[in-house]
């Protein structure tokens, strides 16, 4: 058997596509998203505060003897910021516990990247008979993996606070762990209605369900709506597909779904330590919180972890409530032609639709990230006791009651 035939064996084919997917998702998608988000954060913040924001750093062509630099809207800042952090002196205070001080930033970053393993970035793509889902691990426990791994993220923060052997970081670490434990409950309970409706924990199947029956937050959904209808302007057919997708159950279930969505969104803000729940790093009270004593790459890793967790959190929200990679009229990976162009083979068309699905998913994530940034520069911070009260007395109960409401609707309303 020659090498190319060996590479097309189903198991080996899946093995090397998995490696490609892992590398592309981590280095080609998530890390660029992180640096783009940092840049977007500065730009959006500037916009909200009526400033210009970073707009200078681009391609430094003056080094090569040209008259002017190319500015590229300041996009060069994305690269300049990490380079600056890398070149700073890595100063380690004398009083720290060296070992834990050293591993804490890694422990904060790794879970944020691991969560991405179960996020479906795109539909299943078919190469002949071989089905390749555009996600790293298509496992049945999906969302449980997300909760389990992100609950490990707290160790990095707690250890950083403790190992720094300094008062403010310690307070930041303690605040962070109690905050995460409090909001994990609301986070976990608020998604149970989704699983009651779909009947599986598998993230890919949740997206496929939403593609056919409508996003969790959208009660009106066309059935059998296709790209051709839209291109030909066949409004009667579009209207008929909306009428076919209507059901009373969907309309009633909309209420608990919106509650779920809002509770999950707010709990996600608390889990990722973003304003208005950024008590662990409240500058005015705690200097910099748990990463006060860190400099250079140690600090950069915390930064990276925080933004990667934000991106992963947005990905989970999009997957569960906003239809993941799907748009109602875009075909998924089972399509065999790409706009009827003759010379594209079936696997090529499947792959192209897969990549389009991936783009839709990333666009939705970008919209969620914008929401995160928007909230940060708009709302003030909660007081710590308010934060705890909100988590335990309000969101926890709300999520619990919501489960029963959903179950009742599903059991009683069948049409």
């Amino acid at each position: 058997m020659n090498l190319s035939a060996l590479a097309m064996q189903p198991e080996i084919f899946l093995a090397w596509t998995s490696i490609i997917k892992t590398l592309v998702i981590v280095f080609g998608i998530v890390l660029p998203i992180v640096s783009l988000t940092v840049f977007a954060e500065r730009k959006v913040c500037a916009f909200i505060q009526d400033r210009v924001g970073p707009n200078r750093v681009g391609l430094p062509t003056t080094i090569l003897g040209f008259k002017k630099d190319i500015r590229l809207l300041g996009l060069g800042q994305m690269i300049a910021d990490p380079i600056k952090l890398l070149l700073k002196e890595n100063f380690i205070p004398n009083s720290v516990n060296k070992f834990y001080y050293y591993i804490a930033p890694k422990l904060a970053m790794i879970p944020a990247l691991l969560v991405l393993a179960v996020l479906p970035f795109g539909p299943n793509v078919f190469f002949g008979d071989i089905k390749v889902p555009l996600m790293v691990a298509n496992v049945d426990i999906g969302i449980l993996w997300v909760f389990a791994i992100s609950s490990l993220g707290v160790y990095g923060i707690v250890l950083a606070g403790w190992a720094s052997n300094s008062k403010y970081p310690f307070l930041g670490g303690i605040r962070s762990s109690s905050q995460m434990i409090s909001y994990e409950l609301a986070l976990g309970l608020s998604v149970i209605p989704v699983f009651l409706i779909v009947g599986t924990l598998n993230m890919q199947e949740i997206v496929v369900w939403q593609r056919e029956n409508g996003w969790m937050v959208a009660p009106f959904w066309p059935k059998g709506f296709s790209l051709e209808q839209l291109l030909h302007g066949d409004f009667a057919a579009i209207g008929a597909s909306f009428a076919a997708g209507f059901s009373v159950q969907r309309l009633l279930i909309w209420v608990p779904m919106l509650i779920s969505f809002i509770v999950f969104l707010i709990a996600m803000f608390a889990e990722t330590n973003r304003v208005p729940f950024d008590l662990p790093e409240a500058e005015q009270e705690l200097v910099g919180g748990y990463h006060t004593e860190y400099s250079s790459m140690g600090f950069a890793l915390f930064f990276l972890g925080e933004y990667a967790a934000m991106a992963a959190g947005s990905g989970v929200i999009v997957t569960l409530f906003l239809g993941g990679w799907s748009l109602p009229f875009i075909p998924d990976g089972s399509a065999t032609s790409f706009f009827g162009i003759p010379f594209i083979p079936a696997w090529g068309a499947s792959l192209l639709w897969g990549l389009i699905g991936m783009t839709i998913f990333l666009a939705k994530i970008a919209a969620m990230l914008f929401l995160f940034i928007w909230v940060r520069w708009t709302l003030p911070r909660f007081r710590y006791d308010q934060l705890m009260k909100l988590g335990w007395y309000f969101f926890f109960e709300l999520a619990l009651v919501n489960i029963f409401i959903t179950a009742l609707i599903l059991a009683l309303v069948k049409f």
Partner: protein
Amino acid sequence: MEVALFWIFAALMLGFGAAVIFLKSPVSSALSLVVSFLGLAALFLLLDAFFIGIIQVLVYAGAVMVLFLFIIMLLDLKTERARKINLPAMIGGLMVVVGFVALLVKLLPSFDIAKPALARPVNDVASVGMLLFSDYNLPFQVIGVLLLVATVGVVLLSRKELK
């Protein structure tokens, strides 16, 4: 591959389990226990018991041990100093160990290793759920009441003024 992974994770689990006892600093001990739990979870995953494995991580590594660490740090427990060996305690401990090993030696041959494992669970979340709410419903409810009693007890004890 699976056999190699089994040995790696088993070694990880036992090594860090021993470290829990031998390390002097309470924080190090707690974190060793976390790694030990992660090793155990990996062993469950190797058996295709994804649900049990991930719940192991979620509940023990992600919630229980965070609370442990929280308390250790909040009370600011210092590194243990070497203690004098307490002879009766030592003998008692050794007796427990000998008894446990004897039990293992007696029990292990009774397992039929040649027998193949049960049919692999296709969807283990559903199968665990079905078993829990049908065959084991009564024990499940009893545990629920037990936890409720514990919760009420904690609330009562943590109130400032007891009448």
